[in-house]
């Protein structure tokens, strides 16, 4: 349902920006600062390395590109790789759309393409790839395997070239992953200048992890000329997307500066960088600030009918003179503006998403994904859900209900599916994978619901702190916007932030992540495996014993032991008998034989009927007898 036109656009990408000669390696660093509504500031770092490596053999000799990335292309048939490590939730309603999308926790997807590549081979490579980056980024990506990976059918599209051969894609999220310092440090080590100089020196873990939202990203893609493996570019983009909450700085006003945000000013640029620029958004929420020092020049970008003004600081110019040290930019708001700062309402983005769980208890529930279209026209919407194996989803309960904005409640009106792809999940093996596509009318919300059952797992399958709950990863909602409002993502063919300036296209592919969910599965008692095994086996033995004796023993008539009627005497008698059991063994041996003879005689005699009841041998007695004999 989405045109593949952008694949053609990728061809442009091959030569986009400054043309690369053979064996040419370029590094760019960019920083975008966007004041957001509600006293938030978004800072976005992007470090791009492009290397026209030509032949594959050249991959053994890297300069700016990290060695591990080059080896990746040697070892695996991977053509495109995305990894995101995120903490926090991007608020679409107030912050608009981010420049790069990410979901809370770890997210990873990769495209594979090559000759003679089979599905199994891709599965194997995918697992190894995850293990490699588990080590490179110190993240738990080694938990990525078939039990939490899917092969998206429609939603994730390739951005590598040539993308017309046989290709495979794998996608996985680890929503439980906690992103922290140990991920940031190795991530910074992939940069040519490390964290010593350039924009990366601003990324100090103490400040990065204080933010409301931080997301580290890594994207690798290969751009080759059609049918020419010897003419390739590898492009590595590292991004860090942070959202600061100014209120947490406890300032009287909401002025801020680079030093305030990152703890220090900028000490220069990375000497290996081709370009090193800071972009500061000046309109919308940025309008109320004054910049000190004043920017050198401004760029006006009109994209899809939406205009954004950026001020640009070029670090190469800034640090031209040898004496300059520690560059700082301050955002100052006039005093009178302070009052009104919260009045500037954010523009509602055209599509927003939410997700939540319905139902209570640990037995079953319902996953609800809500997609709101505030555009006036209908938009195509695609939703991809990965439902982990420990939750059973019932496809027949899947429904999309709609609600026009003027109404408060969802009616019975259903929206028809335009597209439905489903692979059912299997316990401990496969997640359920659902992709649906539909047209969402303008000014309408859609409520996608699916019923789920929560499973009881084996006791060793629960993570530590089992009652914390299990995560269900975020759903991805994708759409195609006809206009560029709020849209800031880079075009597929561009690799620098400046390539998004004036990049008007017929449509803009948008992809959003919903919230991740936590379900609390029923838990067993972790402390008593032995007891359970013993008790269950006892019950089995309860059946086995009597059935065994019914099947193997013969009926014998024995002498009625004169049991005392008194309860106390009965017990006394029992104890006494048990004590005598050993010495009286011969006696008990003798009794049945006489009984048996008697039995023969009674049979022969066939005496007249006596009282039919009252003298029934009780089963309890029989059981006791057995016990004694055992």
């Amino acid at each position, binding site marked *: 349902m989405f045109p593949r036109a952008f694949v053609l656009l990728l061809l442009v990408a091959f030569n986009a920006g400054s043309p690369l000669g053979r064996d040419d390696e370029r590094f760019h660093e960019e920083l975008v600062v966007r004041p957001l509504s509600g006293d938030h500031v978004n800072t976005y770092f992007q470090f791009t390395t492009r290397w026209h490596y030509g032949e594959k053999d050249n991959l053994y000799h890297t300069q700016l590109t990290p060695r591990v990335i080059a080896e990746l292309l040697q070892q695996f048939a991977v053509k495109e790789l995305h990894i995101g490590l995120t903490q926090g939730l991007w608020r679409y309603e107030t912050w608009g759309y981010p420049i790069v999308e990410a979901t809370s926790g770890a997210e990873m997807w990769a495209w594979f393409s090559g000759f003679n590549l089979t599905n199994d081979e891709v599965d194997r490579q995918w697992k190894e790839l995850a293990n490699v980056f588990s080590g490179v980024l110190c993240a738990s990506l080694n938990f990525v395997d078939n039990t939490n990976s899917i092969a998206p059918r429609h939603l994730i599209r390739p951005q590598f070239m040539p993308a017309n051969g046989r290709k495979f894609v794998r996608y996985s999220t680890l929503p439980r992953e906690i992103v922290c310092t140990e991920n940031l440090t190795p991530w910074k080590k992939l940069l040519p200048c490390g964290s010593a100089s350039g924009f990366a020196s601003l990324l100090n873990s103490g400040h990065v992890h204080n933010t409301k939202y931080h997301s580290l990203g890594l994207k690798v893609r290969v751009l080759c000329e059609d049918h020419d493996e010897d003419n390739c570019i590898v492009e590595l983009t590292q991004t860090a997307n942070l959202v600061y909450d100014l209120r947490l700085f406890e300032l009287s006003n909401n002025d801020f500066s680079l030093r305030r945000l990152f703890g220090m000013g900028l000490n220069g640029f990375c000497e290996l960088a081709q370009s090193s620029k800071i972009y500061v958004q000046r309109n919308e929420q940025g309008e109320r600030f004054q910049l000190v020092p004043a920017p050198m020049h401004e760029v006006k970008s009109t994209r899809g009918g939406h205009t954004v003004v950026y001020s640009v600081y070029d670090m190469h110019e800034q640090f031209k003179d040898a004496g300059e040290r520690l560059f700082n930019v301050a955002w100052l708001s006039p005093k009178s503006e302070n009052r009104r700062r919260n009045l500037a309402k954010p523009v509602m983005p055209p599509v927003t998403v939410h997700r939540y769980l319905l139902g209570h208890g640990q037995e079953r529930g319902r996953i609800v994904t809500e997609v709101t279209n505030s555009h006036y026209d209908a938009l195509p919407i695609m939703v991809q859900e990965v439902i982990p194996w420990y939750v059973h989803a019932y496809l027949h309960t899947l429904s999309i209900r709609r609600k026009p904005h003027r109404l408060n409640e969802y009616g019975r009106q259903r929206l028809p599916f335009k597209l439905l792809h489903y692979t059912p999940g299997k316990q401990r093996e496969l997640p359920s994978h659902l992709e649906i596509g539909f047209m969402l009318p303008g000014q309408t919300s859609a409520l996608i619901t699916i019923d789920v059952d929560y499973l*009881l797992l084996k006791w060793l399958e629960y993570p530590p702190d089992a009652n914390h709950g299990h995560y269900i990863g975020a759903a991805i909602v994708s759409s195609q916007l006809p206009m560029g409002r709020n849209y800031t993502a880079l075009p597929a063919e561009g690799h620098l932030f400046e390539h998004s300036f004036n990049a008007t296209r017929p449509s803009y592919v948008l992809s959003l992540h919903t919230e991740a969910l936590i379900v609390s599965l029923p838990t067993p008692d972790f402390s008593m495996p032995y007891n359970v*095994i013993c008790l269950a086996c006892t019950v089995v033995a*309860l059946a086995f014993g009597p059935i065994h004796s*019914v*099947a193997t023993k013969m*009926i014998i*008539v024995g002498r009625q032991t004169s049991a005392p009627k008194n309860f106390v005497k009965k017990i006394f008698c029992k104890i006494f008998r048990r004590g005598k059991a050993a010495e009286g063994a011969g006696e008990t041996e003798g009794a049945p034989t006489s009984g048996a003879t008697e039995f023969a005689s009674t049979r022969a005699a066939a005496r007249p009927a006596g009282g039919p009841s009252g003298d029934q041998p009780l089963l309890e*007695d029989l059981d006791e007898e057995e016990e004694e004999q055992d």
Partner: protein
Amino acid sequence: MDSKFFKLLLLGGAVRFYFCRTPLAPMIGNRVEFATPLNSHKRMQEGIFLLQSGIDPYLGDLVHESPLILSALSGLFKNYPQFLAMFYIILDVLTAALLYAMSHRFVQQKQDQQKVERKEYAKDTAELQFNSLDKLDIPELVIVAYLFNPLTVMNCIGMTSTVLSNLFLAFFFYCLVKRLLLPSLLVLAFETVRSFYPIVLIAPLLLIFSRNSIKRGVVISLLFAVCCLGVAVANYFVLNSWNFLDGTLGFIFYFRDLQPNIGLFWYFFTEMFEHFRTMFLITFQLNATVLYLVPLTIKLRKEPLLLATVLVALMAVFRAYPSLGDVGFYLALLPLWKRCWKFMSHGFVVFTFFLVTLSMMGALWHLWIYAGSANANFYFGATLAFSTGQIFLITDLLFAHVKREFCLFNGQKILIDGEEARIVLK
């Protein structure tokens, strides 16, 4: 077949019809005691939906119904969902009717047998013999026990596929009593491929039809194997894939879904140490199938129907995913052994066990899953006690039968040296 029979059937149907329109019905359909992963209505719906959407239902592990059933019912589920409840009620009433016809015939056979053996019976044993009234009483008791047992009623309104299993089993019993070899083989093969455990019922079938000839027994066994194969192949052609074997039989054997139920498996294998799992899996499956099969077959070779009853009951206790619908079915067979009741001494204990544990289950489940104030052990305790109660009932029936046999030929009152003797198993 008198008017009373039809009245009872109608009344049974009416009871079910009334309850299936109350909010009780969806609640029962979601209760773990009735709806297991194997028989739940929701999973059947899912299977039929996937089948109709062109997705192999056995790729996932939600659907464990056999493909033949899925495709047979898919038209009904799709086009007339409002008549589904009616359909299940009719099937359940049909089961009752089959049980009635079966027990009628069974009593008649017993009476014929008695006529031959009468001379050997001891004199004071009139009350242990089937009398002329039993021909009316016992079938009536059976049908009442099936139609008005709350367990079967709730099983029916919960629309579990145990209703189908019960129908097939009732038909199997009917064929056994009527001495119809081929239909009984076919229905048994179908049930076996569907839910594995009924394979044990081949023993009573062999006892009845082989008539002490080993050659005939071998032929029947082979015939059974061929029937199973035929059913499997027929299932294969529904989807043109063998995936269903792993989805039905494999799922049962390997016990992949640990959802709580009334059986012994779920908590045992939840708490199992992983390296012992295979061993205990095999042990428990053996326990549910062949462990009691041979000894009981030898012991009860003269009473194939009792053997079948006991095997069905043991199956309901020890199978991997038992439900209360299975329990309701074998409880309805107990009136066939009305003449053994005299020797059944655990009646009160078992009844109390059933009453207490069944009412505790709901409460403890709520405490564990919804209130969070109890844990899994509580519910496990209730299911364990329920299983124990059932086991008491089964062993009691067996002991009672053995004693009745003995007393029938030796009289009820036996004196040794002028003292009353007691009967002992040794």
